[in-house]
Structure formats: structure tokens, C-alpha cells
């Protein structure tokens, strides 16, 4: 194993980590702010990929317009899911269990609707023009699209963090995590806030789906794979914690990249191994959610 190989694997892991983070941070945002555990989050990732495919292949838009279509589509669907279904069970006894059942049903329904509309065969999406080649940095040949994903991911992380900590909307979201009743009595429309948070999170999922589509093929099973990995990320990082999701995604992405290099057949087991190890030593995750700062 020479240095350039290690760097290449590291970058490949970083790409995976970025995509994972985009999904897992949405999951953790919904949980942190709305106290909803959205099992169907991976399905919005998948819907994003399919919408982008639809936009490019049927409506002949370019890649960047397809990203907008996909993120908007996934976001609107997410808001509908929250406003029409999830909202009805808030505050019910054993809400957590019923939330999981409801969002699990979403997975079943969305997966099958996707099969109905687009069929079961693999779809593929071309890399955007200008990003099909690779660039050379210090003698290393790196696919430029991977670099683009990493950069975009970094921008989203920083933007999301700034919005959460520096703007009024971010403050409202963090306040909703702590005390909805108080927030409501301060004149904030809490149900609307919940719906919007849901929309933003699912839009991020759909966005990740489009970014991932040129690297992986688009299949009806993509959502399931993604949600399992994202669940592991939040278990490792600590549920409801922004930086926890980031660290968890980074660990998982790198473990994956180097695992594939070391033992290709068993790479997918390493994810679980990391999870079990985390559980043994820190059952609440590396960044255990604290009462005071949830997001």
C-alpha cells in the first residue's frame, strides 16, 4: 500500500461520507427538531435520483436543472407526508412506535410506486458536462466529479451549520427541539415549522440522491441501502446531533473505502462492526444528545 493509494481510497471514502452525511443530517435534523424518527428518509433519497433521471431522460433538462427538480420534488413530497400523515399522530401514546410504523409504511408504498412508474430495471444518470473527466493534483488522478461532490458537501455542511446557529429560522428550529409549547406561545407557527423542517431535510435527501446517481445505478432498492447506512451513522454519531452525523458519516465512509480495498466481500460487515464497537463503549453514540443543545 503506497501513499497515493491511501490518498485515493481516502478521497473515495470522503465522497461516500459526503453523500451519507447529506442523508443522515436530514434524518438527525428531523429527529432533533421534530422528534420524529423518519424511517422513510432513504426513500426520499431514492425519489430524488428517479426524479433527476426523469428530468434528464424525458424532459431533456441538463443535470443542474435536474438537481433542482429532484430536491424540490423530494422536499414537497416530504412536506406532504408530514402534513397529511405524521402530523395526525403527534402526541399519541407510544408515539415513537407508531411513527416508525407509519414511516415504514411509507417505504413500502414509495418503493412500490417507484417500481410502478419507472419499472425495476437499473437506470443510469450521466455525470454533468465538464465533470466527466479527472483532474491531476500532485501527480494523482482524481475524478473531478468526486471532487465536486466533496466540495458541494462541504458547502452544504457549512451553510446548514450557519443557518442553524446564526439565523432566526435556525433559532426557531432549535427552540422547537426544546419546547414547542413555549415557542408556540411566542407567536411562532410550530406546525408550519415542523413541515418546513421536514421539507428541507427530505430535499437534502433528494439532493444527495441526484449527486449519487452518476456514481451508483438508480434502483428501487437504493433507498433501503441508504437508510440502513444512515441509521448506522446516527447510531455511531448520536441521534439528533449535527456534528455527530458528520463524524459518523466520515467514519463509515472511510471504513467502507478501506474495507473494500482490504476485503471486498466483507466490506459491508465492517459498517456493522463499527456500530457494535460504538455501542459497547458508548451506547448513546459518540456525541450523545444533550438536553440543552439538541441540534
Amino acid at each position, binding site marked *: 500500500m503506497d501513499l497515493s493509494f491511501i490518498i485515493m481510497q481516502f478521497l473515495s471514502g470522503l465522497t461516500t461520507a459526503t453523500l451519507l452525511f447529506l442523508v443522515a443530517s436530514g434524518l438527525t435534523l428531523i429527529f432533533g427538531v421534530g422528534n420524529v*424518527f423518519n424511517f422513510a428518509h432513504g426513500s426520499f433519497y431514492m425519489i430524488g435520483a428517479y426524479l433527476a433521471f426523469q428530468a434528464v431522460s424525458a424532459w431533456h433538462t441538463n443535470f443542474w436543472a435536474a438537481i433542482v427538480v429532484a430536491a424540490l420534488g423530494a422536499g414537497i413530497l416530504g412536506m406532504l407526508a408530514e402534513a397529511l*400523515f405524521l402530523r395526525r399522530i403527534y402526541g399519541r401514546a*407510544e408515539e415513537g*412506535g*407508531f411513527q416508525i410504523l407509519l414511516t415504514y409504511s411509507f417505504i413500502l*408504498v414509495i418503493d412500490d410506486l417507484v417500481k410502478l412508474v419507472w419499472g425495476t430495471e437499473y437506470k443510469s444518470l450521466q455525470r454533468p458536462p465538464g465533470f466527466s473527466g479527472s483532474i491531476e493534483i500532485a501527480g494523482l488522478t482524481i475524478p473531478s466529479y468526486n471532487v465536486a461532490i466533496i466540495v458541494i458537501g462541504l458547502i452544504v455542511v457549512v451553510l446548514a451549520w450557519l443557518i442553524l446557529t446564526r439565523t432566526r429560522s435556525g433559532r426557531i428550529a432549535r427552540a422547537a427541539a426544546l419546547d414547542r409549547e413555549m415557542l408556540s406561545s411566542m407567536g411562532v407557527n410550530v406546525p408550519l415549522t415542523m413541515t418546513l423542517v421536514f421539507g428541507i431535510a427530505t430535499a437534502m435527501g433528494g439532493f444527495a440522491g441526484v449527486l449519487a446517481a452518476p456514481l451508483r445505478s438508480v434502483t428501487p432498492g437504493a433507498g433501503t441501502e441508504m437508510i440502513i447506512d444512515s441509521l448506522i451513522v*446516527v447510531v455511531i454519531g448520536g*441521534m439528533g446531533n449535527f456534528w455527530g452525523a458528520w463524524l459518523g458519516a466520515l467514519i463509515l465512509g472511510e471504513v467502507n473505502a478501506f474495507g473494500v480495498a482490504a476485503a471486498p466481500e466483507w466490506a459491508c460487515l465492517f459498517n456493522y462492526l463499527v456500530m457494535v464497537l460504538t455501542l459497547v463503549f458508548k*451506547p448513546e453514540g459518540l456525541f450523545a444528545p444533550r438536553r440543552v443543545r439538541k441540534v
Partner: protein
Amino acid sequence: MEIMKSYSAAAFWVLFFVIFAVVPLVKTSDYQLMLASHILIWGMFAVAFNMLFGLTGMLSFGQGLYYGLGAYSVGMMVRYLGEGWFVPGIVVGLLASIVLSVLIGLLIIRVSGVFFTVLTLAFGMLVWQIVFNCYQLTGGDDGIQGLIPPGILSNRVVYYYFALILVLISIWLLRRIVDSPTGLLLRCIRQNPERVRFLGARVKRNQLRIYMISSFFAALAGSLIAGVDNSIHPDMLYWTTSGEVILMAVLGGIGRFFGPFIGAGVILVIGEWVGAKTEYWSLIIGVVMIVMVLLLPRGLAGGFQLLKARLTSAPVESRG
């Protein structure tokens, strides 16, 4: 009143036994016998699952793990040691479920609520991935075919009665657990774990205990199914299996002991009716589940009870 109650309970058990016992005599095809076996075994699985969710309030999304464990221990024993090892395979599966549920249980009962659910799911997927990957050992995606029970058990009717007796004993044992002091304690844990701790009872130990019990009977269900279907496959460990048993319990009613059994029956009959496992089976399941969660969270049994209460203006008894 007490005597009336025990009479009606006894009558219920006799009726339950008689209905399932006469199936082989009145059946018109082997197919009906198979459906009856499925209802019995899945019904027991669903009742055992509900010991966690309905009784104790712990939603496990990983009971498919133990169901598959039971099936695979029978399958592997038969595959590597020969036909005669079918019944020992069941015993090995049950022992393995105890060991594994203690190991996993100790790790995951440390957290509660949705965290618990996520961890059960993750461990279930971990074992699924292992079985799926070890193609040489487990047959991977192909599963294991041709699992014929040995001796007189190879007769379908004999095997049906074998399963019926085991299921009846299991359900009776589970009922005893629900009515025992442990069952009462578990209901208390569901309502207020903190108060239970203040009263001096051990919350975690009892949660672990019921997790083991539920997993034990899930493994039994899996090994019994192996003899009915004569084949096993890794999907038995996949999270959709866990999802299906949850749906059965929710559909039937998680608040009643027999609710999940009824749910299993309804799902399996509907499944056969719409041409089971059609391409869009999970779409149907998903829609049914959404409707149940939103409109009838107490399930069919709960809804029926509510209706009865409204008609007779008797107070609703909530149990389990």
C-alpha cells in the same frame, strides 16, 4: 363472575383447539393445510412479538433475526448432518436464540424508545448480511431447499399436528407469562419505568427477560416453518419479515393477547386471496398499515371491543 370468566376462557381454548384440529379432516387440498399451518405458526410468532411491543412497549424491528435463526439452524443441521437432525435442529435453534438474544439484548436494552428499535433493526440486518454473504456455508441468496422432516413427520398431516401441539403449548405458556407477576411488572414498565425502578424492581433485567422470551418463540416459529415450506431463504432474516410480523400485530390489535394471532390470520388469508406475494404486495401492506395506524391504532380486536362496549355500554377492559 370469576367462574363465568374461567369457563369462557376454557371454552375459548377448546374452540381454538377444535377449529385447528379439524382442519386436516375437512380440508379439500394440501394447500389449505399449508395455509392453516402458516396461520398457526405466524400467529404464535406475532403473539410472541407482541410480548415486546404490546406488553412491554419495546418495539423490536429485528424479530426476523430469531425467526431466521430458528429456520437456519434446522436447515444447516439437515444440510450438513442429514435428515435425521431435523428435530435436534429445532432444539439447537432454540438454544442459539437464547445465547444470541442475551448477547444482543445486553447491548441494546441499555437504550430505549426509538433507539432500541433502530438497534434491533441494525442487528437484524447484520445477521442477514452475514448469512447472505456466506454463500458456501448457508447457500446465500439461494437458501436451502428440500428440507423434509424425517420419519412420520414427513407426512404433512402428522407434521401439522406436531406444529399445532407445539404452538398451543407456546401460546399457553405466553398467556401464563402475561398473567404472571412478571407480566404485571412488564405492563408497569410500559407505563412508567421510572416508578417501577423506585418500587425496587429491576427494569432492565425484566426487559432483557422478555426480549429473550419473545426471541425464543420467534426461533421456534422459524424452525417450524422450515418443515412446512420445506425450504428456507435469507429473506426470512430481512427487515421485511420483522415488518410483516409488526403489521400482523398492529392489524389484529397490540392491546389484546390474541389480537396479533387474528392479525396474522387476516394478513395470510388476504395474501392468499389477492394472489399472495403479487408484485405489489408490499404496496397493499403499506396502505393497510397507514390506515390502521391513523384510524384504528387499537387494531381489529380493539375496534371490535370498542364496538361491543358501545353496544352494551360496558366499560372497555384494556389488558396486556
